[in-house]
Each structure stands twice: as C-alpha cells, then as structure tokens.
C-alpha cells in the first residue's frame, strides 16, 4: 500500500491531462489537473502538492515562466517539466530554473513510474530527517504534549501515576485533543518503553482487515494466505498496544478483545493454538462509551475491563491559556516541514487564536497554523493568513448557518474595501470569479 502523495499535472491538452492523471492514479497517487499555468498558480495559493508535472509549451504563460514563479514562492518545490519536443536548450534552462527533471512526451512507461517514485521517496526521507531533528530539539519534559493550564497539569500528573503501572488506561477526549500523543507519552515513560508502541485504529479499516491485522493469520487461513503472519498483538509483545477509536470496534471484535484482555492469550485467524499475549493496553475514544453501553452498542464487560483508569483530555476551549505555546510549537515544527521562513505570529492573530472555540481542538489549531504558513506571504503570521471562519470568531452569532455567516462577512469586507472586488477577493484569498459568484448567490449589492 502506497502513501498517497499529491501531484498536480499542468498541460493544455485534455488527452494528456486525462491519460497522465489516470496513469498516476493507478500508482496510488492523488492527482489534480490544471489546463494552464494561471489556474495552476491559483490552485497553489490554497494547497500544496508533493510534485508538479508541467508542460513547457502552453498558450499564455508557458511552463518555464510558471516554473520561475513556483520556485520563487517555494524554492523547495519539486517540479518535473515535460515537452513534446526534445531540446537540450530547454532542458538545461528548466534545470537551471530549478526543475528536478525533464521528460519527453510520450514517456516510456518504465521511465516515468520510476522517476515519480524516486522523487516522492526522496521527499519523504528529507522530511523525516528534518522532523526528527526538530523533535529531538523540542522534546521537553512532557515531549510534544504542551500545556501549563491547571487542567493539563492534572492530566500530566495522572500520566506520571499510570506510567509506573501496567494498568489498562482509557483516554477520552474530543477529536483532535491529542489522545494518541498522550498514549505515546505513557508508553515512553513506562517500563515497556524499550518495546514497541503499536497502534490499531478501529474506525479506519474494515472488520476483516482489523481482525487479521490484530490477530495475524496462519498459512492457508483463507485463499491467498500463502504464509503465516504475525498480528499486532504479537508485534506489541513487551510493548504497548494502542486501541484507537475503540468505540468503533464491531460487536465481534469487542468479543475477541475482551477474551484477549481477560485471558492474555489469543488465536491467529485460522489457527488452533493459543498464543500468549504480553502487552499493555491503552485505549482511546471520542465517544461517550458509558452512553454506548446504555444504548447496547458497546459491551459492558469490555467497558469495565478498559476503564480501569480514565484520563480525560479537556478540549482546547477549556484551556485557552495553552493556545499561545501550542501555536508557537506548531509554527516551529511546521515551518521546517513546509520550508517556510515565517518566524512569529502577530499579536492580533494570536489574540484571534486565543479567542477561537476550536471545535477541532489542537489538530484544528495545527491545521490553521499550517494553512497560515502555506498561504502567508509575510515574515510573520497575520490576521489575513488565518482561515476565514476563524477570522469571523466573535463577529457573528454562533447559531447562524455557515451561509448566512459567509454572506454577512463578505458584505462587511466589500464595504470595508469600498466595493473594490479585486482587492476584496485578494483579502479573502479567493479569485475574483468566485467572489462575483458569491455576490450573485447572496444577492449582495452596493447600497
């Protein structure tokens, strides 16, 4: 299974966009296409791609001019140029301007597949290296979990207490509060830290895949099982097994898990022998498991088995004082990954971050910082770099629908810029066409 890298194909010929897009999708990549340099550059304002494959000869702005602009904005961008006419001159020019490689259409099937794979692999290695360097530098006494609020200090105290034991811990909290990060902290502080931390997510896979991943299988357990395979329960031996989104475990899986937790042994799929299981279980959920038990969708006996110690991570809106340190931490971490030079957050932007309710919690904050780094053009994050929804914090009643909120927000911005549509579109970070469409949709007009 491949990691899904994102690729933007830019070519004015429809047949090339379609066939190259299909070719790359078959290799498991996520592909977007653009028919000219202008729309590609517009797309690049709002999202980033792991690789750009750009035709040199296009009407309007050509590929080399586009390459110049892309590299100016992001010197680390990976761009491969393509052309229908092999010419050493344009190849040399493309490489000089910062392209990684140059290919001639139509491609040799072997050549293009290997080229893309090599570029994506190199990027992953580079990013991992940068991230590891940052993590080593930033790991404090509580590693990547950041917080000085009384609520978080209480959580950290509980972490210290449970780390010394081998008890099952149920970590609860809304989505994005950092349940897996907390589980890793417990593992890293426990006597099992030398063993592996193995996670399984019950919300992400089908039941049959989770079953085989968790329990492993014997040779011949099903058609195609040509050899036996260790499950995560065996791989986690001596370490910690993290049961993420346990509330999504199927009824059958709940029975199997209960047996393992009670008897500390299990059988591989298709196996007849019991295998000893030596792991410490940590579970996490964003659902109210007690309620799920009452409703009959979660087994009561499994709930009691998991809920030996419960650690609840409070939502970010209940610990606003932690926002500045968290925002600064994400800025440091993400600027390395995104290769940005943005070094700080303006006081106004920080105030907005502190005031926001963060329904998506720490993960949403991280995404907001990432977005600000991607779209931001200045040396520090300013108000306009933050998502529009966030900029409206406190400006509109929270029970309004998204549409009516958007309508009043756009109207306010148009007034502010004296109905200069180009300027307002620039401020809203949408193109003029989109703004005109929204003006029409909401029936806005200048009084």
């Amino acid at each position: 299974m491949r990691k899904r890298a994102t690729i933007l194909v830019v070519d004015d010929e429809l047949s090339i966009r379609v066939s190259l897009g299909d070719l790359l999708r078959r290799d498991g990549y996520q592909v977007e296409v653009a028919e000219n340099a202008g729309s590609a550059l517009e797309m690049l304002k709002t999202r980033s791609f792991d690789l750009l494959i750009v035709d040199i000869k296009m009407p309007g702005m050509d590929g080399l001019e586009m390459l110049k602009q892309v590299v100016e904005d992001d010197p680390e961008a990976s761009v491969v140029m393509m052309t229908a006419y092999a010419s050493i001159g344009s190849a040399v020019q493309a490489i000089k301007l910062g392209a990684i490689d140059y290919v001639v259409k139509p491609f040799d099937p072997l050549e293009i597949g290997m080229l893309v794979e090599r570029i994506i692999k190199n990027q992953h290695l580079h990013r991992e290296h940068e991230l590891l360097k940052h993590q080593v530098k930033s790991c404090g006494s509580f590693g990547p979990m950041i917080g000085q609020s009384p609520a978080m200090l209480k959580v950290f105290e509980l972490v210290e207490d449970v780390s010394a034991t081998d008890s099952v811990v149920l970590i609860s909290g809304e989505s994005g509060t950092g349940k897996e990060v907390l589980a890793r902290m417990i593992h890293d502080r426990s006597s099992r830290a030398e063993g592996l931390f193995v996670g399984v997510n019950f919300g992400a896979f089908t039941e049959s895949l989770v079953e085989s991943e968790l329990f492993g299988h014997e040779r011949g357990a099903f058609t195609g099982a040509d050899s036996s395979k260790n499950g995560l329960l065996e791989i986690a031996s001596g370490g910690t097994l993290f049961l993420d989104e346990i509330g999504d475990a199927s009824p059958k899986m709940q029975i199997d898990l209960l047996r393992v937790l009670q008897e500390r042994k299990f059988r591989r799929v298709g196996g007849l022998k019991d295998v000893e299981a030596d792991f410490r279980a940590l579970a996490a959920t964003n659902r109210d498991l007690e309620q799920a038990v009452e409703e009959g969708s979660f087994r009561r006996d499994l709930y009691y088995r998991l809920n030996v110690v419960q650690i609840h991570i409070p939502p970010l809106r209940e610990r606003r004082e932690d926002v500045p340190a968290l925002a600064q931490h994400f800025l440091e971490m993400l600027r390395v990954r995104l290769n940005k030079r943005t070094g700080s957050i303006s006081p106004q932007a920080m105030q907005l971050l502190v005031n926001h309710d963060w329904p998506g919690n720490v993960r949403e904050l991280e995404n907001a910082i990432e977005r600000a780094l991607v779209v931001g053009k200045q040396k520090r994050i300013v108000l306009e770099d933050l998502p529009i929804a966030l900029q409206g914090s406190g400006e509109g009643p929270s029970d309004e629908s998204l549409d009516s909120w958007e309508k009043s927000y756009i109207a306010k911005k148009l007034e502010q810029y004296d109905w200069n549509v180009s300027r307002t579109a620039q401020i809203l970070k949408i193109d003029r066409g989109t703004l005109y469409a929204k003006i029409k949709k909401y029936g806005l007009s200048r009084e």
Partner: protein
Amino acid sequence: MTRRMVEIVPLEITDEDLLRRLASEITRVLPFECRIADFRRLPDGALDTTRHQYHATRILEHLDASGQSSFRQLGVTAVDLFTPILRYVFGEAMLPGRAALVSTYRLGIAPIRDDRPRDRSVFISRVIKEGIHELGHTFGLTHCDDPSCVMTASLDMARIDAKSTQLCYYCKIMLEDELARI
C-alpha cells in the same frame, strides 16, 4: 447465489486456446464466472496513423459503450496499444469502471514461436496476469507494492514474469469490500 459474469471480448484476435485459458484462470482467481463473447472488429478511429498504434482509451470507451448491461468486459487484442502520454501500454482499464483491455502485442518472447512450448506457456501466463491486473483496476484497485501480487505495476517483462496471477491479501480484501459495496 449466481456469480457475476466477466465477458472476454476478442477484438480481432483468433487465438481460441489463449482466450479459453484466460477465461479459466479468471474463474479460478476471481469470484466471477467468465464467458467468451463473439469475435469483434476494433472500433473505427482506434488506429492512430501517425503513431501506427491503436489508441487504448478509445477502444475502452467503445467497449464501455457497447457493454452497458455487462458486469465487466475484458477486451483482448493483438494490436500495439498506446495512450497519449505513454509510448505503449500492455493494457488499460477504467479506474474504476466496467471495461478493461489487454494486448498480446508486447507480451511474447520475440520472436514468438508457437512450436516452442516454453515460449507459448510464458506468453499465455503473461496475458493472463495482465488481463487479471486490468480487471483489478476496474474495481478501483491501484498498483500494489507486493511484487508477487498481480496488481504490482507491470513495468517490464521481468516484473510480469515474477508476479503471480493472484491478488495479495490486502488487494483481495479491498476487492471484497468493493464487491460488497457495488
């Protein structure tokens, strides 16, 4: 329960032995029945007179349009195929969709001699693998990293020969999930 039917469509190819063995292996490897349809001509406009090759995507579109009531159609042809971005392809398929296509043109050991049994068996094995591979794409399966899985990318003859006709464990589960969904 009646198993779903894959239709093999011979497109200007008359090698009945090859088609029968392909059908038999599809039935063995995949949870489908398989039948061989009547011989058909390649669609008009499929030949690109500049490249002297046949446009795989156009043939696929023709197959798809003519097989609206079919579960899946696998076209088999002996002509050389291309797509606008690649110099040649061994096959092509809709990802996902109803139609897949495989060509025998580049899958032989040149020069192919049917009187040499080993050449013939290697050739048939390659066509079978590529046929199943392209059918896999029609269920949304992408290329697999497991070199023995039939869904591994068919970049050259060595890689085609090294893989099996079977789906790996994960691709099999994803096919089952897709079949349960449709």
